[in-house]
């Protein structure tokens, strides 16, 4: 089952930040592939959601970019800024709290994945 983009939208920032924390620096395509691989294809980040989010994170000062030339084209690597590093725990605990609340709200029994 592939999760709908509406579900992913609200958590995308946290997902991206966490990937950047684990992998130091990544480019866009790499992020989508990594997430896809980790979730056994269940979460497929669309390009239309990923890049606006990355640019917003950059504008917020949570990620920084560095560019490298790959032949004729430019590859942009994204990595966490110090501000991003300090925000990430906050974001994750907020999401965890949200998931607990949803479990309670929707009456979901704890289950093993």
């Amino acid at each position, binding site marked *: 089952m592939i999760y709908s983009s509406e579900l992913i939208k609200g958590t995308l920032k946290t997902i991206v930040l966490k990937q950047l924390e684990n992998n130091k620096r990544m480019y866009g395509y790499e992020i989508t592939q990594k997430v896809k691989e980790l979730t056994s294809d269940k979460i497929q980040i669309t390009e239309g959601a990923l890049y606006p989010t990355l*640019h917003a994170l950059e504008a917020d000062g949570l990620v920084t970019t560095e560019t490298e030339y790959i032949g004729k084209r430019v590859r942009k690597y994204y990595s966490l800024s110090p501000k991003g590093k300090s925000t990430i725990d906050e974001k994750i605990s907020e999401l965890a709290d949200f998931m607990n609340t949803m479990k309670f709200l929707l009456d979901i029994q704890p289950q093993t994945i």
Partner: protein
Amino acid sequence: MYCLSDSQIDFILNDISARGIESVSLQQDLLDHICCIIEHELEENGDFERFYLATVGSFYKSELREIEVETQHLLTHKNYYVMKKIMLYSGTFAAAVLSFGIILKFMHWPGAAVCIVLGLFALSFIFLPLLFTLKIKEKQQNTDKAILVVGAISAVLISVGVLFKIMHWPLANMMTTASLMIMLFVFLPVYFFTGIRNPQTKVNTTVSSILLLCGCGLILTLVRIPQTTHFQRLEDTAYFFRNEQILKNEQQLLSVEPQDLNAKEIYTLCESIKSQLLMKETGQKAITADFETKEALIGETWVNAYLSGGTEKNLKELQQKILAFNQANGSKSGFEPIPENAVDFWSQAKVKDALNNLVQVQMLVLQNQKILLE
């Protein structure tokens, strides 16, 4: 694994830019992304063009530009929150500092001017412009936008006008009058007649219009009309003229030239400062009985606007002479010292008060002369 040629990369870049992706940074991101997908997923001898179109087609719902629009939306949305925050903080700051400044002013404690200026600055140049920028985004119709523009202009003008007024800076009256006129004759009619047509906003519009009209009315009640100003100036001039007459009569009655050198100089210095000030204020060297027909009236100008052309030098000299005069005669019985601050006009004194003070100094010189002769 497919190997992309330079011309294919150029083709992709041109295509995504033709599809409405204008931001260079986003172009770079998408170009690399598409190239990665093609390199990883297309077989070595696959059909580049077909695969590219299918790939780019999976990026959007109706057109590729969505990504750019969404990015712009997220970025302005971020500014929106920052602006809202600054607006709230600057508004709170302005209100707090202004109120504090007014308390200081009423209690005649120091720091009032700094607080009031800071508060009004924050109000007129940070809070109101931000409020305007945020509100105009919410308005859809052009009339609503126009009302907001006019309202914002008159609000900024009125607060800057009041700031200039209390600081005695130029153009204050013009700004305040202009803002009230705009408010009453442009903003209010447009606001009222557009709001009253909509049944939902009818009551609110009427109440706000009444409040606004009454508020402007209250301010205008406090304004002195030009005619009153004219009467005031006539009275002030007549008052000074009478003082001058009395001084002249006293001087003739005494009929003895002052012996004290300081007294003599004080007297002549006062005369020349008076004529300098009168020249600048009325265009005449002295006030004569026909001042009303000549329109040679003393107004409410501040003395510090007239200090050029030797007046300031004369005033300083006068102050020194008064000090010397008081010191030389202080021990004599019956001597009435001239108050040292009598000619301290630098900070806040109006021409009419300065002129009358100078006459008083001369009277004191004459009076002391009489006492010292006895």
